[in-house]
Structures are given as structure tokens and as C-alpha cells.
């Protein structure tokens, strides 16, 4: 099985926010929640870069490690998913996540932040593939239909790449070789640095 990863080529991102909009529309994400966001650093200054960021589906996922109820699991494709039925909305995954990926429907209200929501790599949740229950909680399951995440699929400059980690790394590498420079695969060292063995561990990891 492929090990799915995201890669954002900051040299190509034009901050059009189409990935953000596509994600919200595809999954009917509620108000106040953005599974994906575009961050512009050094805005208006030399060295300005825009980077589209969401859950990176880390190899040694910090969210998974700190969750008090163990609601996270990893699919055969290396995608980090979670069960909203088990989530208690404690917010620990957000404290641990290096990328600010977990989102909550409520800001405060005595710490009951509601069920956490995050990028699913367009592959739903524990429910049956593309069932109404799965859609309601996690959005569409494009991977089950043989499609890749919509954010990357519709990226106009193909800055955002999603798919088999080896293939998108190769595409990126070819680009860098061709143009002679590259700003690095943002977040890759943080998300995927640890050993390969755990990457494709199927089913629920404890």
C-alpha cells in the first residue's frame, strides 16, 4: 500500500485559497472550522512565501500519542483518522500537533469543545465508506472511490501535492532540479522524520 502524504511547494503557492474553499465545500465543514488553511509568511516583504497547511498525517502522530481516549487510528494508506464517537473534545491533540491541524466546533464553554475535526485526507472515518453517517461526521471518502484529496487535485498551480509519498517527493525533486532552487517540503522533517516501520502498520495502533 502507498504511504499517503501531502507536500506543499511554497515556490508555486499563489495564496488563492482554492484548497481551503474546496475542502470546506467538499466535506460541508461547519462554520468556524477550517481543515486546511493558507499561511503567508513575510507578507509583503522579501522572501514572502505562502504555504497551504492541514493535517500532515504524521508518521509518529503526536495527536495519537496524547489522546486520553485513544480515538485515533491509522489506515493502511498511512492516513491518520479519528473517531468522533470516542472523542471527548479535551483539546490535547491541538496542544501536541505541530501544525495546528485539530479544530473544534466550540471555543470554550467549560472546556467542552465538541468533537474534534481535522483533515481526513479525504478518506472519511470509521463508519462504512461513503455512508450518510460517515459523510455527516467526516465528509466525503474520495480515497474509497479511488480519488485523491480534492484540495491537491484542484490546485491550479499544482503547488499542493497529495498522494504516495515516494511519488510526490520525486515530482518535487524533479521540479527543484529543473528550476535550480526549492524552499523545501514544508513540515516534512517534522511529520515524517521517524522510522519507516510504523508508517504502514495497518489497522488501529495502540
Amino acid at each position, binding site marked *: 500500500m502507498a504511504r499517503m502524504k501531502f507536500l506543499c511547494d511554497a515556490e508555486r503557492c499563489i495564496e488563492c485559497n482554492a484548497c481551503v474553499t474546496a475542502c470546506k465545500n467538499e466535506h460541508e465543514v461547519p462554520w468556524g472550522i477550517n481543515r486546511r488553511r493558507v499561511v503567508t509568511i513575510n507578507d509583503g516583504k522579501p522572501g514572502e512565501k505562502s504555504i497551504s497547511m492541514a493535517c500532515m498525517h504524521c508518521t509518529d502522530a503526536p495527536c495519537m500519542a496524547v489522546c486520553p481516549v485513544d480515538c485515533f487510528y491509522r489506515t493502511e494508506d498511512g492516513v491518520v483518522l479519528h473517531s468522533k464517537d*470516542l472523542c471527548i473534545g479535551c483539546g490535547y491533540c491541538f496542544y501536541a500537533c505541530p501544525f495546528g491541524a485539530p479544530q473544534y466546533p466550540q471555543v470554550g464553554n467549560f472546556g467542552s469543545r465538541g468533537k474534534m475535526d481535522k483533515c481526513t485526507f479525504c478518506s472519511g472515518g470509521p463508519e462504512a465508506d461513503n455512508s450518510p453517517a460517515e459523510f455527516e461526521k467526516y465528509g466525503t471518502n474520495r480515497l474509497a472511490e479511488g480519488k485523491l484529496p480534492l484540495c491537491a487535485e484542484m490546485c491550479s498551480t499544482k503547488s499542493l501535492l497529495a498522494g504516495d509519498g515516494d511519488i510526490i*517527493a520525486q515530482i518535487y525533486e524533479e521540479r527543484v532540479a529543473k528550476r535550480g532552487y526549492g524552499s523545501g517540503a514544508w513540515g516534512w522533517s517534522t511529520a515524517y522524520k521517524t522510522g519507516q516501520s510504523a508508517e504502514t502498520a495497518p489497522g488501529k495502533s495502540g
Partner: protein
Amino acid sequence: MTLMTLRRHARLRLLQIAAAFALVVLAGLLLASAPAYAETGKPAAADDATLLKYLQAHPGDVSGRVSIPDAKSGLLIQPEGRNWRELRNGAVSILGYVLILGIIVVLAIFYLVRGRIRVESGFSGRRIVRFDSLERFTHWLTAGSFIVLGLSGLNMLYGRRLLLPIMSPDSFAAMTHYGKLAHNFLSFAFVLGLLLMIVLWVHRNFPDRADMAWLRAGGGMFSKGKHPPATKFNAGQKILFWLVVLCGILISISGYVLMFPFSVTNMPGMQTAQAVHAILALVLIAVIIAHIYNGTLGMEGAFDAMGTGEVDLNWAKEHHSLWVAETQSRTDAAPGAVPRAGAAE
């Protein structure tokens, strides 16, 4: 070249480029002259660890502008999360095991060696009032809420490892969810109890001369027939009082910071609040386990103080001689207010 070496070559190249960019960003942020370096494509070697180190020293520097309303999401990479994870899953978790199992082992050894501390002169049958109803209400309000808070808190830290394997994921998640709700709402009872406790008892908990003697004698804990004089609260109880008050206040403050996420602080603040909350709570749980032992199994006649509120006179004379003298001199002066004597009935 084989496919393997090609792939390894590609990966190495990618790493080199990523590392090179790390240096460019470093230089850019430091000197604000990034483009000149970026075009050359030939910066000196730097690894991701260097970048991470830089980011940790200046967490604000990796944030940028976002066009969505949530301005906090402008923080691109937050490496402190790794430290928080390691602290919570590592040191804090181990500290809890050491403190709680440690205090239980110490108490068990003490019980085996010293046994239950008896009222040496036997029960007199005469009882004097030690804690009035408001004092007992305060104690049990704090104690009752603390037990639920402590257990639900321990469940957040250890439940996944200790309880989840013997429960279904659904029932464990439901239990943890209700535990969290109870934790949030009972915090108000705990804080009320804590404040009442301060009001009722703080004036009796300032150190005095008898405390030094009491501590030097080890509270009489290690030798029979030895009862260093003490006022209403002995030095050990005063230490307990100040531990409860100080830990309790800090746990409450950090707890409310956690309860209203990001309303008063930022990400490092939230992480610190969680760590402070967990560490001090574990310390207090260990202290309270010792306190529960003292008040029940450890000492004959002690539970009555918080049970009925009346203790045996001989128990009081042995453990709080100065307080008995003080109480009796007061009642002698005002004969109308004789303490209820059980034997007279």
C-alpha cells in the same frame, strides 16, 4: 545505478535541498535578506534540527497571515508541541507513578512497622468538640470534590493505559467524557471549599514555637508514648494545610485556564497550564493519600474529628495538648459553655 540507489539518491538530494532552505530561512529571518541567498541555491549545509532549534527560540517567527477569521491559525509550525507531548507522556506520567505508588509503599511500611497509633491512655469516654458543623462541611465539600476531581484527572492521564484494555472503547470514552464534565463542574465546589478552608483555618496555621519541637520529635510518630505538644493543628497538619492551599490555588488557576482554552493565554501558556495542573495535582493526590491514611487507618480516634466533630478527651490531650488547655481555660472562664461530655449522659 539500481532503482534503490536512484531512490536513495533522490531522497538524499531532497534532504539536502530541504536543509539548504532551512539555512536560507534562518539567514532570511535573521538578516532580512533572504532572496539573494534563495537565487544562488548554493547555501552551506544546515539540518532540520538547526531550523527547529531556531523555531523553538522564536516561536512567533513561523507565523504568518491567514485570510480566514481564525488569526491563531497563522501559526504555521509549533515545535513546542513535541516538548509538551514528551513531558506529558514521559516525565509527568512517570512522576505520578512514583509519587502515588511511592506514598502507598511508604505508608504500608509505616503501618507494618509502627502499626495503628492507639490512644495510649485509653478512651476516657468524655468528648470535646473539635470541628463545628461549618468546619466539617468545608472539609467534606473539599474532600468529596477532590476525590472525584482526582480520579477523573488520573483517568485522563492513565486511563488509556490502565482501564481501556479492560473496557470497550465506547464505554471508556463515555466514562472519560462524563469524568471530564464532573471534573469541570465539581471544580467550583473544590474552589469554594478551598476558600472556606482558608477563611476558617488560616489563623491557626501560622508556625509557632511548638511546631519546631513537634518536628524535632518527628511528631511522636516513630516512638510510642511520645507526644510533643501541639495547638489545634500540629506542625504536620500545618504543612498539610499550606500544601493544600498553595497547590489547590495553583491547580485551580491552571484548571480554569484549561477550561476556557486560549481565552487568557496562547499555545505555550496552555501547554504550561496543563503541565502545572497535572504535576501539582499528582503531588496533592500523593499528599492526600497520606492524609486519608492518617485520618482513618493510621490513628485510632482521629476520624471522629471530621466524623462526628467530637473527639475523645484523652486523644485530644495526647495529640493536641496545648489546644485542650486553651479550650478548657476558655470554658473555665465561661462556665455557661461547657463542652458536651459524653460520659455525663
